[in-house]
């Protein structure tokens, strides 16, 4: 057991912890925005063609098989330390669930509705914006949610590349195992990530309520 009580530790270090947590959340949030825009865009461009859609899904899932530590390690020589490798890695990892769900969602829109939309005189962009994307939105939002959960964990690794976030806390603890505060540090970082993940998830439930049209809400 650690010498210092965990609650005492939190009391003395809460300033630092809050800063780390904020930076963690902010990095995940920003990368999620970029990943969402890119992911939906890739989905929109590729869903219509069998091979392009499959290529997009395969490529993004290949990225996901690369261990995140290795990915960041590979990025450091190219883009240096700190924020850049973190942002790039998080965005790339965030893409897969979004791309896959966007493609599945867009392909899953009832063909008769697409036929009806075209038949009453919608142009292709209009059909995409007014019919296909709104109907594919629930699965896309699920993809975004899954991505966010995943990035919460992966973002912790960013500390390895001197990135921002709660990972610093964990790494510091791991580096000084056996010291007075080591376990408290790891525990605080981990719990912080879990709390953040829960907060984000609650936000997504709210976003779902606000953005999924009432007519197709489950």
């Amino acid at each position: 057991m650690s010498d210092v009580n965990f609650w005492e530790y939190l009391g003395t270090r809460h300033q630092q912890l809050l800063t780390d947590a904020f930076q963690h959340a902010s990095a995940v949030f920003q990368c999620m925005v970029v990943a969402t825009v890119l992911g939906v865009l890739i989905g929109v461009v590729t869903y219509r063609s069998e091979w392009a859609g499959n290529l997009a899904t395969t490529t993004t899932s290949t990225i996901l098989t690369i261990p995140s530590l290795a990915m960041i390690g590979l990025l450091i020589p190219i883009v240096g330390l700190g924020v850049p490798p973190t942002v790039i890695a998080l965005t790339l990892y965030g893409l897969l669930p979004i791309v896959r769900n966007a493609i599945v969602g867009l392909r899953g829109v009832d063909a008769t509705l697409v036929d009806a939309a075209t038949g009453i005189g919608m142009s292709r962009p209009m059909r995409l914006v007014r019919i296909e994307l709104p109907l594919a939105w629930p699965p896309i939002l699920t993809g975004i949610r899954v991505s966010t959960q995943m990035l919460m964990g992966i973002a912790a690794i960013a500390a390895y590349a001197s990135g921002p976030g709660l990972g610093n806390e964990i790494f510091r603890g791991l580096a000084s195992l056996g010291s007075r505060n080591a376990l408290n540090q790891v525990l605080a970082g981990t719990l912080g990530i879990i709390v953040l993940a829960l907060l984000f998830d609650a936000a997504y439930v709210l976003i779902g309520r606000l953005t999924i049209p009432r007519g197709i809400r489950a």
Partner: protein
Amino acid sequence: MPESSTSGASIELENLTKRYPGSPSPAVDNVNMEIQAGEIVIFVGPSGCGKSTTLKMINRLIEPTGGRIRIGGEDVTGIDPVKLRRKVGYAIQSAGLFPHMTVAQNIALVPKMVGWPKRRIKSRVEELLDLVGLDPGEFHGRYPRQLSGGQQQRVGVARALAADPPVLLMDEPFGAVDPITRDHLQDELIRLQHELHKTIVFVTHDFDEAIKLGDRIAVLRERSHIAQFDTPEAILTNPADDFVSGFVGAGAALKRLNLTRVRDVEIQDYPTVTIDDPLQEFFNKLRSSGTNEILLLDKRRRPYKWLRRGDLMRAKGSLARAGTLVHDTVTRDATLRDALEAVLTDNAGRVAVTGRRGEYDGVVDMETLMNSVHELLEADRLEAMEHQHELEEARATQTHAEQEGDGGEKKA
């Protein structure tokens, strides 16, 4: 409907052909057809014969690989398909309503796209809901999943009519609803068309539906070849070949009954008394009419009871207890088939005909029906023979002209 409502435009298909890539024979092969402004033309034919493909080429939802389409005389084969489709109403099976939009939003789509002002769209939506028999206040804000199949279908028709297009294309619009609802929707379409005079092209599998709705029916065989294109009467009484008679199916004479309405046959006048008349009136009427039955009407002159001479005796002079209740009536718009059904189930073989508000209008009985049907069939037969005669003559003159034309060309 406002007086400004656009009525139909003619449609001409000229050598219309569709060849899907990778398929050896065309799905639609050289179709030629002239559809007049304001008529309902029905495409019927076996599954896969190319009905939908032909229909969807009219709004270029499927691009033809050959031939032309003219709507209202204008060649639309080369114009912007998106613009074309906004001028052609389109209704499909199971309505195709967008589930994330309310009823009002679904209907407003096309008027919005063609740039109607907000206020006009709003009143148009109410007007259309009313037109298709849905209460605007109640249905306006509902989502499609909160509607029954029949109600969805009505909204589908309203959406197709929204920007008041001259032409309406309908691909098995009533294919996915139960028979009773389908019957209602068909009646409603007939009523609508009575007011709107659109040009409607309607695809169905169901020959009875074709007979009921069509001004003319195109019976199609594989590759959309036209087996016969004629009025329902002509197709029923004089099918062009075995393929068509196979499609017409058994019971052509019975189906013929669907084409004639009660208003077209002789309705008999029947002695009546109203419930407020003094009893003496009842006996006077009986005596003067020479029948032994009389129809008792309620205060609003709706048929109420059949009263026989003896009934009143048995009920000890009380009109309230005497006689048998009228359990079935038909309107003047009912088909003879409906009337026959009612007459057959009535134990005395007659049915009262009523007007708009249910008021008494007359009576039809078995004998009237039999006579009318015989007359109808006879008239059809004569007409068909005449028609055939004309065709043969036309063909003869054509051959003649061709032979002479050949000679002329050689000389030139």
